[in-house]
């Protein structure tokens, strides 16, 4: 276990979601679920973040913003798509302005199902992402050593 998995900081971005998933993400911070137990902090700053949490589908207006935010997060980083909208576009998938899920613009590591995704599921998804974060760090180190 590296320190990455003990202090993951989240960046939460709301795409074109109905706000259902966002409320569930914020519910994770409440005393009932208290994700700070795991050292997780919901930071509003991509430069401090390790995990990029996306809710809602991607449309033509926010795709550049999502790419921009993703590129500002220092490596190693992981992306968690929360809710059906962020996974595949959900009920908005057919809309003329919607591209689809988050994986249309950035690589997504963990998909959390549900409409809206439950706080338990979100926490599960984040914990799963931690394993990937750890692996990514080791891979990055190998690349650095090799080069």
């Amino acid at each position, binding site marked *: 276990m590296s320190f990455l998995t003990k*202090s993951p900081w989240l960046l939460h971005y709301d795409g074109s979601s109905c706000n259902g998933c966002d409320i569930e993400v914020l519910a994770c911070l409440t005393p009932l679920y208290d994700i700070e137990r795991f050292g997780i902090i919901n930071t*509003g700053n991509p*430069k401090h973040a390790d995990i990029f949490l996306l809710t809602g589908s991607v449309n033509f207006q926010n795709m550049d913003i999502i790419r921009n935010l993703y590129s500002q997060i*220092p490596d190693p980083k992981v992306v968690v798509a929360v809710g059906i909208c962020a996974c595949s576009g959900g009920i908005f998938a057919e809309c003329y302005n919607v591209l689809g899920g988050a994986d249309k613009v950035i690589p997504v590591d963990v998909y959390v199902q549900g409409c809206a995704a439950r706080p338990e599921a979100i926490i599960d998804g984040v914990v799963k992402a931690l394993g990937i974060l750890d692996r990514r760090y080791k891979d990055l180190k190998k690349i650095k050593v090799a080069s």
Partner: protein
Amino acid sequence: MKHFIIAVAYVILAPFIGGILFGIDRKITARMQRRVGPPLLQPFYDVLKLLMKDVQVVNRLQIPAILCHLVFTIITGFLFFEGSDILLTMFVLTLSAVFLIIGAYSSSSPFSFLGAERELVLMTAYEPMVLLTLIGIYKVVGSFSLYGIISTGIPLIIYLPGIFIGFVYIFTMKLRKSPFDISASHHAHQEIVRGLTSDFSGLTLAMIEMAHWYETVFLLGLIYVFFAFNPLAGVLIVIASYFLEILVDNTFARFKWDKILNEAWLVALILGGGNIVALYVITRG
């Protein structure tokens, strides 16, 4: 030689003490909000994680400025515990704060810019009280050195109650705690994202955090000076004032900058200035 050893011990031990203090802080804060809260060692995990992250710098000035911030903060505490002039110590502390602001100004991010501006407001708010504290201490014991003050055995708190309260008041600003957390907040979101620290990540953010640990331990040392005639009382007061900071942090909403400036100067004038005038009148009469 003995003082030199204490100063070296400060440089080595302060980050551990500071980190644990911050861990306790987060734990107590969580308990006050009926949460479980992170593990006690969380601040260490955070900093170690930040060191593992990629180094992302926005310009050439960032790393040198923050390195200077950290180094001058360490020198501040070193000089203080080594028994140098407290006046000099405080100037070095101000210098270190200036380097942090320069680092924040160097980025083009409006959040970081605004944070730096607000930090400057905070500095103008607390500096008068810092100066009055030093003047008060000198007036009573006639010495600017830590060990000179302690060796006189004068109970400073009896002569300087107003100044002590004023100093604990600005301690909140130095810790960047609510209601004075306008430049950068430890908690969740605020309107200027992470303010001062918005454009720092990884290595630089870890250095800022460590400087904060050093600074906190040094400031607690300065609080101890008021009760140095009785070590036990001193330690208890230090713990009590830290707890008070946590309580205030959790019960107050953030002030606006103009209110902070007005109040801090009023506190400095009434408690600090009043205390010195009273001292002057009493000792003359």
